[in-house]
């Protein structure tokens, strides 16, 4: 990791980024004004009168927009030729999150004077992480050379959570060290991608070339099958010990996608899916938590006032939103509070349902479109990367965000069983925002074609394995 040399600052304009940021800021300002007007109308005050909300209308948004434009200024001053689309896209998602949090009951969470102000602090922190990494990271040697160290760190973190994690809502996800608490699975997904990028790029030639035949099925070469079985076991153990279906699904899906990106073999992916479904079927019988989730998915209305309450309320919210939505702030007032009427854990697990109610089908499609933009940019960065490690890393980082958004959005819409993971950049929560900031910052840094060339490869296991020359 080399730092930007202060003497070599060559500012370079980023017109596209600026234009996109201006449009995004405009949209968010209009949204904020709508929200304020709706709220005053609802509270019966004459327009213009002060209402006693913890944050003066618009102050939070102004602070957030200032942070975004500040980030833009820093990137201009650094003068690197990097991606100009990711920051505004992610910034717009974060701004929508801020509007949503301002609109929910402030006592839902947060130690810093309410939901919105806490989320504001985390959002600004996330923008700061993106900027720092995008401006300073000029080499990926520290990631590629220590992949086993990272993997060991990740497994250690996971084991620590297994043992010392705090149970919240029946899920053992939160790790508290002194005053700091966080969800390690958020950081784990980044470590997983780094490790897989290192492992797969190192063994790509072998994975493509050799295969063990088992009847009609082509398996990966046996010595290289072991890590895959380990991944599968890891995912299932997360389900059993942490009861965290979302993280397990995310990790395994990203693993299979990267395996496909690396080898181009659909059979590996099919095999992985079969193994996952088989494992899931066994877990359905053994683990009651899994059974509950699947039963709710099959028929939430059977337990509409019990276990299925959350999902049923979310479906109602989407239905109320219709095509154009009820407008920001005009959803059900008790949304997010305890029954009756609201969706429990709305700010973390169901932000899409609230946005579906207030922005409608059109708004939800725009938000999903923003996630697609993140994926497209990441895959473009991967396609133009100089070597395999960087390509797999960039693809993995963008897919992590995309797959996570898909899993929770599909869960909200009852397309797949609901799993409690966060919607990147929109859900409330510091671990999620900071880690996703790390992911986007890395993507922007990797998009620079002028970064340090990859370090000379170390001697690889397996390169000595050469083929016989054909017929003499």
């Amino acid at each position, binding site marked *: 990791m080399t730092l930007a040399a202060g003497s070599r600052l060559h500012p370079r304009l980023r017109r*596209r980024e600026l*234009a*996109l940021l201006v*449009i*995004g800021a405009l*949209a968010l300002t*209009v*949204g904020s004004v*709508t929200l304020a*007007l*709706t709220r005053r*109308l609802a509270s019966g005050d004459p*327009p213009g009168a002060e209402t006693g909300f913890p944050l003066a209308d618009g102050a939070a948004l102004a602070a957030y927009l200032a942070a975004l434009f500040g980030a833009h200024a820093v990137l201009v001053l650094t003068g690197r030729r990097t991606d*100009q689309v990711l920051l*505004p*896209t992610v910034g*717009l998602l974060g701004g929508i999150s801020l509007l949503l949090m301002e609109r929910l009951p402030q006592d839902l969470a947060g130690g810093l004077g309410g939901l919105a102000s806490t989320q504001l602090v985390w959002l600004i922190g996330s923008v700061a992480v993106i900027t720092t990494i995008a401006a300073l990271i000029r080499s990926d040697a520290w990631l590629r050379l220590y992949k086993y160290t990272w993997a060991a760190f990740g497994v250690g973190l996971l084991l620590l959570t297994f043992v010392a994690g705090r149970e919240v809502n029946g899920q053992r996800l939160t790790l508290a060290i002194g005053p700091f608490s966080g969800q390690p699975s958020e950081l784990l997904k980044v470590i997983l991608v780094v490790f897989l990028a290192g492992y797969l*790029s*190192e063994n*790509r*030639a*072998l994975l*493509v*070339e050799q295969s063990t035949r088992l009847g009609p099925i082509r398996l990966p070469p046996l010595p290289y099958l072991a890590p895959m079985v380990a991944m599968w076991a890891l995912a299932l153990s997360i389900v059993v010990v942490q009861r965290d279906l979302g993280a397990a699904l995310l990790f395994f899906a990203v693993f299979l996608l990267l395996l496909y990106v690396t080898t181009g073999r659909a059979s590996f992916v099919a095999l992985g899916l079969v193994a996952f479904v088989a494992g899931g079927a066994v877990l359905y019988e053994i683990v009651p938590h899994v059974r509950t989730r699947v039963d709710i998915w099959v028929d939430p209305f059977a337990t509409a006032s019990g276990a299925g309450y959350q999902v049923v309320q979310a479906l109602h919210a989407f239905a109320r939103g219709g095509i*154009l*939505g009820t*407008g*920001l702030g*005009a959803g059900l007032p008790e949304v997010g509070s305890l029954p009756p009427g609201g969706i429990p854990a709305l700010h973390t697990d169901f932000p899409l349902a609230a946005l579906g109610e207030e*922005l*409608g089908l*059109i708004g939800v499609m*725009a938000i999903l*479109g*923003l996630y697609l*933009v993140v994926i*497209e*940019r990441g895959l*473009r960065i991967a*396609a*133009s*990367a*100089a*070597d*395999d*490690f960087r*390509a797999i890393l960039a693809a993995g980082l963008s897919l992590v965000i995309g797959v996570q958004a898909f899993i929770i959005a599909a869960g909200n819409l009852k397309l797949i069983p609901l799993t409690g993971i966060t919607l990147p950049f929109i859900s409330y929560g510091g671990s999620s925002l900071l880690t996703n900031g790390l992911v986007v910052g890395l993507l922007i840094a990797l998009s620079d*074609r002028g970064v340090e*060339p*990859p370090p*000379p*490869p*170390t*001697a*690889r296991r397996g*390169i000595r*394995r*050469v*083929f016989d*020359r054909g017929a003499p």
Partner: protein
Amino acid sequence: MDPVVLSIWILRLVFLALLYWFLWTVVRILLRDLRAAAREPGAELGRLLVLASPGGEPAVGAAFSLDAVTTLGRDVNNTIVVDDEFASGSHAVLTYRGRTWYVEDLGSTNGTFVNGHPVDGIAAIAFGDELQLGNVRLRLERARR
């Protein structure tokens, strides 16, 4: 209709419209990038970057765009002429098959090395790997897109 209600209505729609304006602008940028990538001389399968070349031919820092079959050696008929006293006339050949690059040593006197290991016959090489023929070191890189 109450002007406040009406203005809220309009602002709501403006908000959604602005979201789509943002998306539209992004998509235009993405399409322009894609077209620019498509316009570039296509069919480049990889590039070979010269890291060290004591003889000066090929020059250090030069980057060769690779065809599916690229031969290397001292003979002038090679795709890439390697003018080095330890390189053979017909030294090695790089081929692209499936989605992988292979290097084959054509029975050179001093051998071909991948990341410091001698190649015996044909070996698969990955992007980022270093080739050495005589004193000339080259790195295989992915095509610029």
